[in-house]
């Protein structure tokens, strides 16, 4: 059994929050104009049509129009603009 799977089962058995135990990214989307990302490692790319955020599990690609990072701290970032897609890409494989 994979180490990740063990952690996931442990977390669900102990009913502990998975974002703490597994370090999973938390995305809070408000309509299609605001996305809040927590538990991430850093930005890898940022243009006004695409924001790539590196997390422990892999990359999150937020694409849309007139994207802007409202604020950017060690724990949380907020992206605003007209968001059309949120994709999860396996980070270990190269695109």
């Amino acid at each position, binding site marked *: 059994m994979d180490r990740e799977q063990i952690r996931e089962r442990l977390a669900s058995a102990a009913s502990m929050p998975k974002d703490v135990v597994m370090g999973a990214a938390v995305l809070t989307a408000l309509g299609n104009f605001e996305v809040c990302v927590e538990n991430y490692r*850093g930005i890898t790319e*940022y243009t*006004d049509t695409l924001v790539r955020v590196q997390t422990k599990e892999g990359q999150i690609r937020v694409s849309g129009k007139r994207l*802007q990072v409202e604020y*950017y701290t060690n724990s949380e970032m907020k992206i605003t603009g007209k968001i059309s897609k949120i994709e999860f890409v396996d980070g270990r494989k190269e695109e």
Partner: protein
Amino acid sequence: MIHTLIRFLRGYVRIRVEGYSPERFLNMCSYHSLYIWGLAPSGQGYEFCMSARDLKKIRPLARKTHTKIRVTGRYGLPFLAVKYRKRKLFFFGIFVCVILLKVYSLFIWDIHFEGNERRTDEALSAYLESTGVRPLMLKSSVDCPGIVKNIRKEYNDIVWVSASLDGSRLKIQVKENEDPSLGEDADVLKDETPVDLVASADGVITEIVTRSGVPQVHVGDEVKKGDILVLGRVDVLNDAGEVTGYQYRHSDADIYADTQMEYTDTISLIYEEKNYENKMRYRPFLRIGSVTLSVGTLNNDFEHCEITSSETALKLGENFRPPVSFGIQTARAYTLAEKRYEQEEAREILSVNFSRFCGELEEKGVQIRDNSVKIHLYDDSAEASGTVYLTESIAQEADTEILTIERKETDESVGTDD
């Protein structure tokens, strides 16, 4: 909102980052807990805002990530202060403002009264002024316990007073006595000088309730003005029914009687009416203390004119009136025209006068039973006349005659028997 204000007060800069991997620079910033906002891509790099204090910390990060940093804008209070540091008058103005604020706060600017219903604000502030407490006095010279003591001493019907300073306002809370038995009536009851009650008008007694003294009349009796109604002298009798002495009382009774009153009211049918014209003269003025500044003149060549004056006193706060007032004087021309009342108009004026007269009587507690007032119209005058039948209280106080009794021989014999 509050964030924006804090950012402005601390000062912030807008920075442009360009180079091989500006994203790495951003991640380094967040790793070192440097707060970044307003991040936007621009050309090959990014632009963002950060606080002026963090600017020093990012130099080593920029060197490490091989990025170039350019400050594109400086915002906030620290930068403004540096920019305008040569404007000495501006800073002097701020300094003067602070000093004036401090100086002004040393004075009382207003006196506020609370809880007074019978005593007016004006009366209380006039009294306080006579004791030296007025707006514009120094705050440090206000003696709150002294004010409380003075008000309690001056006004008997104020049963509780509190004086406190509320900023630059003196707040005075009072509680008035609502129980009338503790007020002036108590003093009246103590009055023990012997008096009679006499009739104040001719009439027929309809009701008499005596509380103190000896009643001399009965219901239905006809009395003349000046007749004694209640005697303040009570006879003391011995067993034989002879008067041996007198006790004196302050007579007290409710006595109502039916009385009559003649009423006449005459008006002239011819009167002069003012017709105002549109010819006017104005003179606005400003009065400071006893000095009056005015513009223009009221001098005119009008045949008749009416001069009116309106004046408004300046008022700061609630009870602080500086001796400044302003207003305007107006002279308006008019012509006189002789006119004559129509019969109906004359009737109406007389009946209005009569009903006002009746209203005044009723306010005094007089009941009007009937009247035979008729309106007569003559060539150039109109008259309302007749008799008004009233029921009113006719008791009036008068001093009691003090009598002395000569001792009789029988008294002595009684004395020797014992």
